[in-house]
């Protein structure tokens, strides 16, 4: 194995790949543009639509308003709420979305409230479950009723010579003491491992096909095999380009995603003050080291499989199903509360997904990290060996 | 344009396609094997993992336990909470996940409660977004609420008043929308999106194969030299792409329906909120509005792929079409977007939104008609374009 030859092959394949328009678009342009556009566009539109829905005038009906004149008055006074005359068609109208909600006051409500009755009264609010605007109106009506209730309670307490403190002996509140990094890490650890793994795979797919089956299709396979470069040197040179492309695509995508989220986050920070986004460089670096052998395994395996194909189209047919084989275990990061153990550490892809989730959350289980790194390196070595072997087999290289 | 010739072209393309083993496996693999497996499998695993997580004991620490012996006693009796001795480094322990929560009771708590002065505040320290910590907090808060309710009752009772004094009126939401409508919203948001995406994606491969693939294999020239007209050739190919796309979509929908029904027992979490009764009338109308969209997709993909010289190139070009189509599809599932006359004219979004209406059992006939008409117009245009392109030598013989 002469390093010089590997370098020569690597340089040529890299030049060739970088000049391929398809690679440039799917590996560079797409990740950089897609995420900002998607996130910003989708998020922006969602906010727009939701705000618009909130501002729309909501038709509401009051049933038995005569029993609760004060409440009725308050509801009528709400902005963007239009009270329609009462009718017993309200169920149908709510279903048809002509009406967002109907409020039913029990008979003699306010009269009963002024006397202290034993039974708490309930005001029914009929609505359309799951429908956005109906939910907005429901919440606003609930708020009105809540405020009214508090006034009554205050008055009642005073009447009995009780203070507000009597009604509320003690308070308790939640206080997050976890570092911002850890909180962000938990959220990131949910989806990021999945994306990183899937990106590593998809980023390697196209170059793996192009450099093997594509070479066969173009008729240049024979020529390179007749040159002094040994089979192993050719495989290594090509493999390095596939790996590089895969890592570059992943890194660019994550970067683009991160920038978008941070930019979006600071825009959102004005809306939700508590949200602080912080990512630790240490966890990012550790995850990278853990994912690296997996990327190696992917690149080598994809090349080995794609080499079997006679042309690009056939290669596609072989590689596309592999996506599913990888996606399922990669989804491991979506599962809450799985604890890593020695057995799970052996399962390829799943182990990396779960480990990355832990690392993002700020945990560094060094023994597990070592174990999983070891296992993944083993799988990577097997994949590389398999790829190298494929390149030795004449029936694979010259399949007709 | 002779129907018989179109039929000949169609039958040959169909025969060719069905003999490709890999394509066949691809058609049936996802709907019949992968999707059910993934849904049920994942649902099962998620259920098991969640159950196991919920049963685990949470370690909590009480700081200042001497100030509220009664409260502490309650916490100790609460299921799922295991108190540990107090120590200074609780913040570190919570961060390291060795401790799930810490409760800090201010000085003089018990006395303040009994005397009825300003309410003291108990702090619950926890790890936000961490499941176990949040569950522990839930349990703690529940215990606190129960205790607080008792204190209130005893205090008010001492003055001869019942706690019901404090709950004069409450607003109770009551859903009056039919089950179909409630479940239909969730279904109607996701299903049209998937149907549209499926229609598009399953048309990709045959569209490329029948145009760029034909060029690559060198058989384009041969067929063009035969006595079939260009228009007939296009129609035959287009019909194959269309029927392939529709077949795939139907199969996937059936698989979806069956899996969802079946998964109701095995993976309840994932299938919650989906409607199971869809009126056949609605289903038919959905099909009617999706059909011209499928035509639009098939014809457009066929035209775009025709520009390619090779299979690889065909993939690139059709890939761009896919990207362009995904955006409107995604927009249509955003919350707060409603079908209107204006949106009824926008391709893809209109079909998605009208399907949502139909799934919830509402029939805005005017809008349905508008969507159908608009999509049909677009479909006709795309078909006309496809036929035009097949006439152009610069496209057919690009090299």
């Amino acid at each position, binding site marked *: 194995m002469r390093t010089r030859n590997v370098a020569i092959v690597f340089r040529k394949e890299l030049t060739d790949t970088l000049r391929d328009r398809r690679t440039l678009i799917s590996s560079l342009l797409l990740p950089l543009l897609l995420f900002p556009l998607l996130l910003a566009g989708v998020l922006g539109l969602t906010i727009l639509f939701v705000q618009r829905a909130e501002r729309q005038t909501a038709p509401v009906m009051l049933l038995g308003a005569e029993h609760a004149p004060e409440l009725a008055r308050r509801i009528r006074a709400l902005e963007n709420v239009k009270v329609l005359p009462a009718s017993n068609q309200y169920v149908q109208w709510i279903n048809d979305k002509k009406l967002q909600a109907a409020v039913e006051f029990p008979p003699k409500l306010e009269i009963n409230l002024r006397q202290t009755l034993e039974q708490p009264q309930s005001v029914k609010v009929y609505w359309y479950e799951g429908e956005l605007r109906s939910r907005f109106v429901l919440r606003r009506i609930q708020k009105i009723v809540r405020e009214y209730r508090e006034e009554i309670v205050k008055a009642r307490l005073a009447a009995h010579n009780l203070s507000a403190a009597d009604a509320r002996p003690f308070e308790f509140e939640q206080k997050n003491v976890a570092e911002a990094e850890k909180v962000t890490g938990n959220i990131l650890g949910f989806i990021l491992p999945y994306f990183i793994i899937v990106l590593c795979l998809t980023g390697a797919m196209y170059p793996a096909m192009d450099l093997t089956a594509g070479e066969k299709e173009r*008729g240049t396979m024979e020529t390179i095999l007749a040159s002094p470069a040994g089979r192993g040197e050719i495989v290594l040179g090509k493999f390095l380009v596939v790996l590089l492309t895969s890592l570059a695509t992943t890194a660019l995508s994550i970067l683009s995603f991160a920038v978008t989220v941070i930019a979006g986050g600071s825009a959102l920070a004005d809306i939700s003050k508590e949200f602080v986004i912080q990512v630790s460089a240490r966890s990012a670096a550790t995850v990278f080291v853990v994912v690296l052998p997996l990327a190696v395994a992917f690149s080598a395996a994809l090349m080995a499989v794609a080499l079997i194909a006679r042309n690009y189209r056939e290669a596609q047919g072989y590689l596309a199903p592999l996506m599913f084989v990888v996606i399922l275990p990669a989804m491991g990061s979506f599962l809450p509360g799985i604890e890593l153990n020695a057995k799970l550490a052996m399962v390829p892809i799943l182990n990396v997904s779960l480990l990355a989730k832990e690392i993002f959350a700020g945990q560094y289980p060094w023994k597990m990290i070592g174990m999983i790194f070891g296992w993944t390196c083993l799988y990577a070595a097997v994949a590389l060996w398999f790829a190298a072997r494929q390149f030795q087999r004449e029936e694979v290289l010259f399949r007709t | 344009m002779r129907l018989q010739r179109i039929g000949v072209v169609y039958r040959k393309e169909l025969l060719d396609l069905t003999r490709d083993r890999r394509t066949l496996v691809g058609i049936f693999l996802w709907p019949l094997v992968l999707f059910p497996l993934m849904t049920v499998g994942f649902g099962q695993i998620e259920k098991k993992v969640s159950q196991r997580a919920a049963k685990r004991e949470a370690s909590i620490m009480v700081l200042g336990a001497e100030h509220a012996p009664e409260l502490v006693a309650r916490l100790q009796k609460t299921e799922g909470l295991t108190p540990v001795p107090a120590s200074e480094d609780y913040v570190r322990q919570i961060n390291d996940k060795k401790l799930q929560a810490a409760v800090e009771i201010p000085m003089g708590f018990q006395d303040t409660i009994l005397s009825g002065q300003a309410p003291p505040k108990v702090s619950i320290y926890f790890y936000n977004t961490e499941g176990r910590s949040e569950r522990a907090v839930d349990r703690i808060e529940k215990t606190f609420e129960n205790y607080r309710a008792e204190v209130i009752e005893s205090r008010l009772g001492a003055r001869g008043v019942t706690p019901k004094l404090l709950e004069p009126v409450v607003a109770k939401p009551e859903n009056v929308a039919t089950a179909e409508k409630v479940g239909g919203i969730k279904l109607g948001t996701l299903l049209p999106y998937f149907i549209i995406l499926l229609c598009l994606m399953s048309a990709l491969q045959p569209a490329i194969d029948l145009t760029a693939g034909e060029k690559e294999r060198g058989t384009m020239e041969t067929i063009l030299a035969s006595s079939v007209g260009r228009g007939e050739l296009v129609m035959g190919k287009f019909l194959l792409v269309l029927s392939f796309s529709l077949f795939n979509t139907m199969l996937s929908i059936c698989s979806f329906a069956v899996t969802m029904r079946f998964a109701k027992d095995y993976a309840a979490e994932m299938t919650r909120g989906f409607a199971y009764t869809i009126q056949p009338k609605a289903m038919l109308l959905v099909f009617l509005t999706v059909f011209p969209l499928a035509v639009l997709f098939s014809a457009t993909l066929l035209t775009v792929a025709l520009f390619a010289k090779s299979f690889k190139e065909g993939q690139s070009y059709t890939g761009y079409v896919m990207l362009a189509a995904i955006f409107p599809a995604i927009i249509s599932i955003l919350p707060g977007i409603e079908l209107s006359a204006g949106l009824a004219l926008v391709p893809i979004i209109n079909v998605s939104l009208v399907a949502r209406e139909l799934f919830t059992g509402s029939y805005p006939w005017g809008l349905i008609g508008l969507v159908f008409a608009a999509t049909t117009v677009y479909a006709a245009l795309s078909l006309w374009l496809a036929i035009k392109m097949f006439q152009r030598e610069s496209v057919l013989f690009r090299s």
Partner: protein
Amino acid sequence: MIDAQKLCKEFQDKKRGKIQAVDQVSFRCEPGQIYGLLGANGAGKTTTLRMLATILAPTGGTAVVGGYDVVREPDQVRAHVGFLSTATALYGRLTAQEMVEYFGRLYGMENGTLKKRIGEIFERLGMNEFRDRRCDKLSTGMKQKVSIARTLVHNPPVMIFDEPTLGLDVMTARTIVGFIRECRKQGKTVIFSTHVMSEAEKLCDTIGIIHNGKLLAEGTLEELRQRYQRPDLEEVFVHIVEAAA
């Protein structure tokens, strides 16, 4: 010099079972001579040539090419062989110069020597005007020249051509034929395969007729005509093949 010694190549086919593509083929080719391997499609020409170029490994026998054994010293063999199969198989996205440079480097040529050599070759073949043009933008004739340059860059003593004029028009085929003659003039050992009779008649010093993996006959054109009492190569060929059936 090429010395094939009972070369054998066996394949395993899924449907047809064991196939003997090349069966005990032996022949010699001297420097300054052109050896033509003549046969129909599937006769074993390509497989034989691939074995000589060490692209395929023989399942039996061996060959000495340029003084090195193909089984024991394949690396050395490749360093001394120029192999040309299809004239148009180039890396489309590389320029003509880059294409030739890549292989030159693989042949271990130093930058200085390589640049000089490329300069010479490009000058001689008239390639300077499309030196920096991408290979997929070249005409067939230009592509051919690039392939020739690539084959020659390391000045190998042995040249192996596998159906080099397949699919080329008359004028462009002549360029290849001229090039092959030039190689002979330079004292290189040349072997090429073809199924075009006229080509074999015009070019070859020795002709080997191969059919079903076996070398059925060998000799100069005159010798073959005399031996089999047939007026031209095509008749000789048909006679031999039919007799073997």
